């Protein structure tokens, strides 16, 4: 069955896709926020002086990182049936990516010169002040471009959320495709929306990275 590209389907489905795209963006932004905060917490916890903290943190992180996001999402949605799918999606995406961003923070923290730690100790700053006023401001500046790259890859993984019935762009595309038997048009369109949104962002991140001297 050979069928030509139907431009009417493109025109009809575009508003639906853009409506879904808003949810996609929302999930990306909130998910990135969760990943950025949680990743920092993991990175700081990973430097705790006690092995009783660092070993379990590392073990859980390795496990989350080595297992598929899709299974985590579907599993979480099946276990926490009373929680809204979008919330589950944001939290699971955030936790999954936090295991990556924590490594970025770790590298950023390692990049702060040793003398800075020693100076803090010499001034007998308490640990909280050391982190807040000296280490983190320097580390975070270095990791921003890398965090941006993870935000982009999270954006490209938001279609997973359609599986747990979050009504994001791909969910809408699939629904429209099934209703009108116009998969070609909607999936091509959805792919283009991803391309148009992610390519300029990644160019921008590359520029930022160069400017910060990476």
């Amino acid at each position, binding site marked *: 069955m050979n069928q030509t590209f139907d431009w009417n389907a493109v025109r009809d489905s575009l508003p639906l896709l853009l409506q879904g795209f808003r949810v996609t963006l929302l999930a990306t932004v909130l998910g990135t926020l969760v990943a950025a905060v949680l990743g920092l917490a993991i990175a700081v916890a990973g430097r705790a002086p006690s092995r009783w903290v660092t070993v379990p943190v590392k073990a859980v992180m390795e496990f989350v990182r080595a297992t598929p996001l899709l299974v985590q999402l579907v599993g979480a949605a099946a276990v926490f049936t009373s929680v809204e799918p979008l919330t589950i999606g944001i939290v699971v995406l955030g936790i999954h990516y936090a295991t990556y961003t924590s490594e970025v923070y770790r590298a950023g923290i390692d990049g702060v010169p040793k003398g800075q730690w020693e100076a803090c100790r010499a001034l007998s700053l308490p640990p909280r002040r050391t982190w807040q006023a000296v280490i983190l401001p320097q580390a975070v500046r270095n990791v921003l471009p890398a965090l941006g*790259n993870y935000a982009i890859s999270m954006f490209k993984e938001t279609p997973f959320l359609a599986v747990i019935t979050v009504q994001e762009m*791909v969910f809408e595309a699939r629904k429209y495709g099934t209703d009108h038997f116009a998969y070609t048009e909607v999936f091509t369109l959805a792919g283009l929306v*991803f391309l148009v949104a992610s390519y300029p962002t990644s160019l921008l991140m590359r520029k930022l990275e160069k400017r910060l001297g990476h």
Partner: protein
Amino acid sequence: MSDFFSTLLDEFPQVRAGLWVTVEATVLGSLLALLLSFLLGLMAGSGLLPVRGLSRIVVEFFRGTSLYIQLFWLYYAMPQLTGYELTPLLCGVVAFGLNYGAYGSEIVRGAINSVPRAQYEAAVALNMTPFHRMRKVIMPQAWVQMIPSFTNLLIQLLKCTPLLWLISAADLMTAVEHIRSRTGETLTAYLLLLAAYFVLAYALTLLMNLLERSAKRRLGLHTGAGSLLKSRTAESAATAGGAR
């Protein structure tokens, strides 16, 4: 709980078949990705603008449009447009191969660029042909650099294989899902599934570490046995921001 495991035993052939489909998709997908990585990565280093440009366009296209959409496009849209249908497994292999091939080409390009410039010059001074130069001088050194990043991509490819469940290939996820819906043991089923993927991921990491060791040996760099057990996901994640 015991209900779950007795059903698991009953349905063991299906689970084993599902595991096989998952492994098959991972292995074939990564082989295609490897092939494309080298093809596109070497094209990106070409002196001819059209060749370089073509590689750039293909890479940006497949990196930019999301794996999920590519897989669905192959499965739902392509039969509608061309009348030619791929089996679900083949759809997965092609989509994984194209998507990860695009990411992998950046690894190849970066690794080739990181070989010291003097090595090129020495090879030129020795009057080696471009092919000979690449095969004997540049590639063995670049290859060692590529392996850790490739390990990372391989694990990510493995982690995408549950997508096959959505296009009704009978993979591991499909088999466990089936048992879950029969027994209602949601938590046990998903924890088992996660554990299975974890074991697969670590087996792959171990294999890639062995490969890295032998590649380093060939360059005369010896590494201790401890490096075999090292997980690579951590190391490359810190630097792979741009590679993803």
